């Protein structure tokens, strides 16, 4: 008893987030992996989707399209599309975790109600879930980068540079997704979410350069999140690298912080009533 108590006191005095408790929330998800093959199947299918797009559109359609100009340089269409699919896989990996899974635990399984009866705080739940979403996201992006290098769609250096960017993409979308899932009323709302995600997927400079869009449309797209993710990842994987990448990273950073803040607040507000 004394040990738990002293630990709790210490954490309380520190007044902030306890890494240990965040780790415990993360550890719960690691434990749940052993619960059966269902989760692993979902995990794998999430990896193959962007990969199939890359192969069918990037390589397949790419054979018809030829080259695309990127930063004044003409590159193969597949080279253009691949970083976008990488960004998409980072986004969907993190989103799948913080929307479907978090929503289920939040609303139906009452997992967090049980957790909040312990010293764990809402922000620690949010951080633990986000870290787990990041793990899932990186699992996808590492595999995807290996495929890209193997197919000659980026260099090893490009892959190494893009890798941390995919982490940022995952954290940004994971955090915002978690905040959104605290507002969802039921499964029917997931249709909206999926539609939104698919729209981003199609129109974020993923399959054609944003410069080819009509002017008004360009402005709209430049405000949406996946555009910044794609531009950042593409800039690092294929080029050109420039200061503008910091703007994209900044956008994603703001998403991460705002999403995390809102998600923690909502978890506390809705469960601690």
């Amino acid at each position, binding site marked *: 008893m004394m040990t738990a108590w002293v630990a709790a006191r210490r954490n309380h005095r520190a007044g902030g987030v306890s890494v240990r408790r965040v780790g415990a929330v993360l550890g719960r998800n690691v434990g749940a992996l052993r*619960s059966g093959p269902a989760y692993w199947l979902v995990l794998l299918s999430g990896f193959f989707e962007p990969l199939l797009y890359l192969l069918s559109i990037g390589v397949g359609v790419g054979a018809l399209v030829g080259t695309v100009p990127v930063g004044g340089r003409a590159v193969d269409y597949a080279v253009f599309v691949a970083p976008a699919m990488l960004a998409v896989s980072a986004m969907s990996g993190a989103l799948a975790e913080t929307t479907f899974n978090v929503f289920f635990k939040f609303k139906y399984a009452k997992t967090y109600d049980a957790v909040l009866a312990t010293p764990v705080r809402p922000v620690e739940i949010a951080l633990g879930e986000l870290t787990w979403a990041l793990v899932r996201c990186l699992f996808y992006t590492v595999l995807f980068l290996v495929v890209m290098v193997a197919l000659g769609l980026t260099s090893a250096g490009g892959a190494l540079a893009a890798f941390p960017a995919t982490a940022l993409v995952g954290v940004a979308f994971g955090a915002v997704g978690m905040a959104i899932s605290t507002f969802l009323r039921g499964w029917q709302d997931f249709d909206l979410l999926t539609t939104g995600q698919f729209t981003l997927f199609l129109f974020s400079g993923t399959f054609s350069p944003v410069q080819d869009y009509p002017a008004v449309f360009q402005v709209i797209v430049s405000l949406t999140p996946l555009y910044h993710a794609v531009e950042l990842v593409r800039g690092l994987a294929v080029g050109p690298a420039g200061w503008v990448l910091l703007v994209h990273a900044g956008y994603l950073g703001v998403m991460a912080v705002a999403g995390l803040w809102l998600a923690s607040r909502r978890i506390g507000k809705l469960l601690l009533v």
Partner: protein
Amino acid sequence: MAEEPLIVARGLVKRFGEFTAVDGIDVSVERGEAFGFLGPNGAGKSSTMRMISCVSPPTAGELRILGLDPVRDGVAIRGRLGVCPQLGNLDTDLSVFENLTTYARYFGLSRAEARRRAGELLEFVQLADRAKGKVEPLSGGMKQRLTIARALVNDPEIVLLDEPTTGLDPQARHLLWERLYQLKRQGVTLVLTTHYMDEAEQLCDRLVVMDGGRIVAEGSPRDLIGRYSTPEVVELRFSGGGDVAGKLDGVGERVDALPDRVLVYARDGDAAVAEVHRRGLAPLSVLVRRSTLEDVFLHLTGRTLVD
């Protein structure tokens, strides 16, 4: 100076929007006590328990747990409480054993310590043979025992149990009561809510009766029975309707007509039965029994206490 009570509430209020669920209650629970909240559906028992568990901020009034302020020191307090909520929330993605180890980690226990505690506690609640199994196939009573084991994982000073035995068969209830006795003997302070009078009589040193968010009576089970009831109660059933109760005027100390039977509160049950027969009344059935908390409750709230 005597130790400050572990739980002190003064004028404690909980509102949900316009609705007042807990309407200014005063409670104090001493270390080592078994304290009960008794009341019908919607009385405000769970709302009170959640405030004490530091998962629901009080709307007004004063609340101190373990000498600390639940809003400011929630993290520290929760680390020393064990909570067994009314609605089960075991983790169905985890095994029985992992439910305990995972929970222990939330309290900051090391992995080894968590495993040791989990093993001990599964023995304590007689679920050791289910350790590796899933939670879903457990029976209601087993799930409840697992939830109690989970509430004990941090070796808490206060254990809060919200309707720990609702929905269990008598055998499962007795097993649980027996475990709770053991905890009490170990010096753990128990706070529980219940609809069951026998449970309150068996487990609680002291209890409050809640109704409509207020406390309507307080004392030990014996106290309350002595104060609000008579030593014996006669239950009479009559065929047909009619104003039987009127004809019973003056038999015993008080008469309560329920839809299905009439209760006569009397110091001496047999004497009351004799008087009923002397008045020429012919009840279908007669039962003389000792007074229970149920009678106290009926007297205080004018309602029977049913699930």
